[in-house]
């Protein structure tokens, strides 16, 4: 076993993407290569800068890309942890453990639909780059911020890609209609993979159920440990058992989990 899976990695780059204002919310973080022997797109890492004790947990991020040049994470600043992460300078060291969890299915011969909402596009970059037949891939990407803030250009050329910029009321509906159309198109002999906000995943789950498509969705439950120990990140599976998203997921077959919000008891 690789007992070095928790590493202290040097930051190579950490910079805002697609904008120049100081108030940037989208960042690309490049870390020195952790020397992994193996990883799967859709897996994630826990990341913890040396930020002291006030913030207790590390933060989970999808692996955006990983190769000899480095481990790349793509993140959006949404709260205290990501704010502090955005202030980390190249040369500083941060704790990283992973690759964690179960990634997306890769099926060389299957037309594969990639459904991404917002920052949920991150893991698909690595997915497309690692895929043996990228021409089988079709990305449908919905986003609110300008396209340049996301790693959209990073997809290899053979991938068919389209983006839907939600700016006006109604744009979301058009995007979801397009998603539904494409899920239906992939229902018979394709594979559907989705990553994005929970309401979006719920919609995709329903579409897959309705059309019979084989679909996988990637969940982003709040995580304290990332390794299956704290039982903080659980989601009910299809049988109603609560399973850890960090180890049983984050990628699940869409019919294997129950995404309805649990009622506080």
């Amino acid at each position, binding site marked *: 076993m690789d007992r070095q899976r928790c590493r202290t990695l040097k930051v190579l780059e950490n910079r805002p993407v697609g904008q120049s204002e100081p108030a940037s919310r989208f960042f690309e973080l490049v870390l020195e290569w952790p020397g992994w022997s193996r990883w799967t797109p859709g897996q994630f890492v826990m990341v913890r800068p040396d930020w002291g004790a006030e913030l*207790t947990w590390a933060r989970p991020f999808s692996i955006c890309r990983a190769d000899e040049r480095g481990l790349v994470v793509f993140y959006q600043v949404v709260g205290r942890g990501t704010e502090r992460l955005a202030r980390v300078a190249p040369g500083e060291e941060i704790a990283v*453990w992973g690759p964690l969890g179960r990634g997306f299915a890769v099926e060389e011969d299957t037309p594969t639909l990639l459904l991404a909402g917002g920052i949920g596009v991150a893991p698909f970059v690595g997915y497309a780059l690692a895929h043996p037949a990228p021409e089988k891939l079709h990305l449908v990407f919905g986003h609110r911020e300008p396209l340049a803030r996301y790693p959209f250009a990073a997809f290899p050329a053979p991938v068919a890609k389209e983006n839907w910029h939600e700016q006006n009321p109604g744009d979301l509906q058009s995007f979801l209609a397009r998603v539904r159309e494409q899920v239906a198109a992939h229902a018979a002999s394709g594979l559907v993979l989705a990553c994005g906000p929970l309401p979006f995943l719920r919609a995709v789950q329903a579409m897959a159920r309705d059309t019979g498509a084989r679909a996988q969705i990637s969940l982003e439950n709040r995580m304290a440990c990332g390794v299956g120990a704290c039982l903080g*990140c*659980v989601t009910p599976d299809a049988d109603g058992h609560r399973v850890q998203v960090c*180890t049983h997921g984050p990628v699940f077959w869409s019919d294997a989990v129950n995404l309805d919000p649990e009622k506080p*008891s």
Partner: protein
Amino acid sequence: MSAPDLSVRLPGLTLKNPVLTASGTFGYGLEFSVYGDLASLGGFVLKGMSLAPREGNPMPRVAETACGMLNAVGLQNVGAEAVIREKLPRLPWRETAVVANLYATSADEFGELAVLLAARPEIAALEVNISCPNVRHGGAAFGQDPEQAGLVTRAVKDRAGKTPVIVKLSPNVTDIAAIARAAADNGADMLSCINTLTGMAVDLERRTPRLANVFGGLSGPAIKPVALRCVHQVRRAVDLPVIGVGGIACARDVLEFILVGAHAVQIGTANFTRPDTAFRLPGEIAALMDKLGIQSLDELRGTLKA
């Protein structure tokens, strides 16, 4: 100078070092085996188990707080028999102390659990959780009343045979010494303290509690001062070894608890801040003892000038 002696002698149990991991924060140990050598730990306490499997509380179950966290997992576990069948055979129990953490809703049920677990050669000790704030029945209620605490302790001790019994105390009480005495008087071999402090967090935008269970247990560095105080009070009240728990994150913290009188410690929330925390501690403790000129933990233990 020779390497400091980190070993700890406890009733019916010798640890190679004072570093155990705390129940509920280290899974069944297996989750952490890629981050370090389980056998290098003094021991680890398994996730709390009950007779029947439990699904625990609904989501959300955890919330981050200033220098700490809240949890209301609600003792989700696969049940003692499944643990015995599926987990114990995979653990390096000959090389390190594997402690079972027991939860039940009645003294009788606690007794039944004790019978099951004490019979297992893999289990070095039983830790009785009478202090969980996250379950509706039993849990902290047993730990908040000396009489109940005594009854539960007795029920477990009577059925534990030679397996030593650790009673885990709650800080959510007016007089922790009284609970400690009740446990001691009813056969506890050791005490561990503390379990979490009852707390709460809310989401202002949604106007909801951050935990589905509303209340949860506060852990992490935030509670270290309370844990140190409890260990000190308990050590002065009873003549049993105490295992210190609460906010321990580094070698210095460990030695502070030993200084106050703890025999060993458990690492909880710090396992989340870095999964190799516990594995790094024995070496860091030895280095710090070296720096301070302390040869053995016995030399330091309980020497606080107070």
